[in-house]
C-alpha cells in the first residue's frame, strides 16, 4: 500500500505537467476557434471550450503540483468561481445579442472565412 502511494507521489509531477500542457493547448485551440469561426453565436461555443475543459485541466495540473495545502484549496475555489460564473456571463452576452436582434447564420456552413459575416460595427 505504501509502495503504491510512493509510486503515485513520483508520478504526480508528470501527470501535473501533462494536465498543464494539454490545458494550455486546449485554451489555445479555443482561442483559435474564436478567431476562425464565422459569426458571433458560433464563437460563443469556442469560448466555452476554453472556459470549461481548459480551465479544469490547467487548474488540475496546478493543484497536483501544490499538493494538499491551502494553496490548492484557493485554486479549487478559483475553478469553482469560474465554472459558476462563465455560463452566466456567456448566457448574458448571448441573450443581449438575441434581444438586440442579431440574427445567427443557420443551415450548413462550409469553409467559412473568419470575417464573412460583417455587420455594422455598433
Amino acid at each position, binding site marked *: 500500500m505504501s509502495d503504491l502511494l510512493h509510486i503515485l507521489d513520483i508520478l504526480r509531477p508528470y501527470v501535473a505537467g501533462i494536465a498543464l500542457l494539454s490545458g494550455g493547448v486546449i485554451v489555445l485551440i479555443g482561442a*483559435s476557434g474564436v478567431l476562425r469561426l464565422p459569426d458571433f453565436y458560433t464563437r460563443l461555443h469556442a469560448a466555452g471550450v476554453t*472556459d470549461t475543459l481548459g480551465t479544469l485541466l490547467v487548474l488540475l495540473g496546478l493543484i497536483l*503540483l501544490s499538493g494538499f495545502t491551502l494553496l490548492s484549496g484557493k485554486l479549487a475555489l478559483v475553478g469553482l468561481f469560474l465554472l459558476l460564473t462563465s455560463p452566466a456571463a456567456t448566457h448574458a452576452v448571448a441573450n*443581449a445579442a438575441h434581444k438586440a436582434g442579431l440574427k445567427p447564420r443557420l443551415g450548413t456552413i462550409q469553409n467559412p472565412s473568419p470575417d464573412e459575416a460583417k455587420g455594422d460595427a455598433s
Partner: protein
Amino acid sequence: MIFATSLLLMASMALMLVRLLRGPQLYDRVLAVNSFGTKTILFLCVFAFLIGRSDAVDIALLYALMNFIATIAILKFFRYRALDVALSRTRRRGEAR
C-alpha cells in the same frame, strides 16, 4: 512545463486581442474581453507558481469575480445606457417576499 503553459496562455491572449480589435459586432468584443479575462485568471494562477509566490492566486480570485461583474455591467450599460436600472421586473425596491 509551467513556463510552456504560460507561453501557451500568452499566445491565446494575443489571439483574443486580435478578435477584440477586429470583432465586427459589439458582442464579439464583449465576448473577447470576457474570454481574455478568463485566460488572465488562468495565467495569474500559473504565474504564482512561476515566481514561487502564492499571493498571485488571491489576485486571480479577485479577478474572477471582477471579470464577471464587468461583463454584466458592460452589457447592462449598452442595453439601458444607464446602470441604475433594476434587473428584476417583478419585485420592486423595499418590497418583501
